[in-house]
């Protein structure tokens, strides 16, 4: 997959590293010359100096060939406009934006950004989780909330534990995509058995959300 990342701050840099280690083709765009030269020592030709909101830079990046564009600068309006430009001019199939102010998430999605990630909201939710175990934490909303990814911890009386996943009665449009047990990440199969205190990550369709939440009450 060819991924363009705009913004070489901590988020952009570690995302780049992660994708490279997974053998994806990436291009990182950073507009600050000092930060750029630091990044290029490590990433070489996989990083370029330029302003992601400027058309010339986007052309140089070969955007039209990209599968995904990720805008992770520290400025919300820049991230939005970068994603919109990529959509309008190059018809990039998928754009993802970092949202610094969680209030902007909804606006971004109405304006055509495919997915938004708000660190502020996730950290807030994680802190809340420490306070209230077993809570239902939204991690990511896709397609304007049509599909959401949730995290929740299983309690001792959860109907999901001590049974093979294939035997569970889950609502329609709902799938368990990962389970975290201590330091281990389990990608569940039909014969996986969830246990008390497992943290599960679930993909849930809009319609299924309420039924799904009731499983944890």
């Amino acid at each position, binding site marked *: 997959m060819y991924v363009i990342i705009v913004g070489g701050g901590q988020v952009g840099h570690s995302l780049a590293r992660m994708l490279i280690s997974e053998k994806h083709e990436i291009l990182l765009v950073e507009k600050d010359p000092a930060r750029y030269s630091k990044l290029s020592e490590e990433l070489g030709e996989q990083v370029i100096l330029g302003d992601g*909101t*400027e*058309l*010339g830079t986007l052309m140089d990046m070969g955007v039209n060939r990209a599968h995904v564009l990720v805008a992770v600068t520290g*400025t*919300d*309006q*820049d991230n*939005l*406009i970068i994603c*919109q*430009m990529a959509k*309008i*001019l190059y018809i990039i199939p998928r754009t993802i934006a970092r949202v610094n*102010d969680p*209030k*902007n998430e909804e*606006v971004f999605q*109405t*304006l055509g950004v495919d997915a938004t990630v708000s660190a502020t909201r996730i950290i807030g939710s994680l802190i809340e989780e420490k306070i209230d175990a077993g809570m239902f934490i939204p991690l990511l909303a896709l397609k304007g909330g049509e599909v959401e990814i949730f995290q929740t911890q299983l309690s001792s009386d959860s109907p999901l534990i001590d049974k093979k996943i294939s035997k569970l009665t889950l609502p329609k449009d709902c799938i368990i995509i990962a389970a975290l047990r201590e330091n281990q990440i389990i990608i569940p199969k039909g014969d996986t058995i969830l246990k008390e205190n497992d943290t599960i990550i679930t993909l849930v369709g809009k319609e299924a959300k309420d039924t799904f939440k009731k499983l944890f009450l």
Partner: protein
Amino acid sequence: MKVVILGCSLVGSLLANQLMAKGDEVSVVDQNPNSFKRLDKEFMGKTILGIGMDEEALKSAGIEKAEAFIAVTNEDNTNLMAAQLVREKFKTPKILLRVYDSKRAQAFRELGLNIICPTIDSAEKIKSLLLENLE
């Protein structure tokens, strides 16, 4: 007419002063309190300290009852985002914005935004003056 202006820039403040003098009801939003010094002493409109993408700041500027929204901060992306937010959320009848980057201006005109691009306008003006002098 009730008008909300985002950005007490040189253009923003000039507009605010002129519209005010003409009898319009004007509110100006800017994130820098010093920018409001550009307004005339007689300026009677509202000044709101805040950022343009912030719905609360726009609401206290009276966006819900405004007939026009003008985004003229010095940042293209701020103007583009604010204009689209106002169009989606508040459906303000008339929305105008400034975008310096000609390429960006052209791209976003495709989304039906009413964009003033001083770069294109100045280039055109200079070209026509050049030709005039050559004749």
